[in-house]
């Protein structure tokens, strides 16, 4: 936990940028009084590097679920080239990209060229 501007951990990382948190005066007063803390999340951007996707796939290979797998992320596209049970399989996300939606009780991720709402 020391101060070190040069911290560079090994392995892929998820990057959160433009995180914006706010505490209104009532929330601050409650927190100072030892009560619960209410933080308003006003915005964020999450970046998942291709290396992380490949690290997850490598885990599936290590577990023996796949013989091999590699993901390639493009501009609104994703291709996973895998080998399972001795057969080559390619999963092409197309040009639809990925969209994330929130509905009561769920996070929904939509992807692919034909992905609907």
């Amino acid at each position: 936990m020391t101060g070190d501007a040069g911290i560079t951990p090994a392995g892929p990382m998820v990057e959160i940028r433009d995180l914006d948190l706010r505490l209104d005066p009532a929330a601050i007063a409650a927190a100072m009084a030892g009560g619960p803390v209410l933080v308003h999340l006003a915005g964020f951007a999450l970046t998942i590097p291709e290396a992380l996707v490949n690290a997850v796939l490598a885990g599936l290979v290590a577990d023996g679920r796949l013989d091999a797998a590699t993901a390639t992320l493009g501009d609104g596209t994703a291709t996973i080239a895998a080998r399972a049970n001795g057969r080559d399989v390619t999963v092409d996300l197309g040009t639809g990209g990925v969209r994330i939606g929130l509905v009561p009780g769920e996070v929904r991720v939509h992807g692919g060229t034909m992905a609907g709402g």
Partner: protein
Amino acid sequence: MGNASASFIDGARLSGVRLDIPLPGGGVAPAPPILRAATVQIDATTIAATLERAIPEVLARFGATGRLAETRLVDGGLVLAVEAQKMITLTVTATLSVTATGEGRILVEATDLKAGRWIPLNLIVERALGYLQNIPGVRPAGPRAVELDPDTLLATPAIAAKLPFRWATRVRDVRITPAAVAVVCAEG
């Protein structure tokens, strides 16, 4: 650096945060997120409330009691009036200038200090500086100034253990207006 106060609301705001989250692997415990950049803004009311709580605790370390009689933010710093009792009752008024040093540290300098005419103000300041320099990350930077080093302060075990992140950023700017304090931290 942007205009940190453009969209400021009352209370406190942490914005422009960049966090890197290392991923666990191979049975290794996950490392805490790494804080690369952030801007902290706190409004004048919150600053005053925080100081009202902190001042009696600080005085108690000197075996004194007392309270914050007045506080207000001004451009570039803050004005404090503290009433303290220890054998005698005295009121010390200080105008503190707060600036970023450019090396990631924060310089706090008393630009104006007032107490009763017969109060040994220099002796009080000397004692206060002597106390402060025992705190890791705080060092005297002149007869009425201290420099705060966040790298060292936040690495203090008692503080580091409570931090939900690893500090990997530098204080680049401290902006104080009558309405709010903004501390801008950036990478490298």
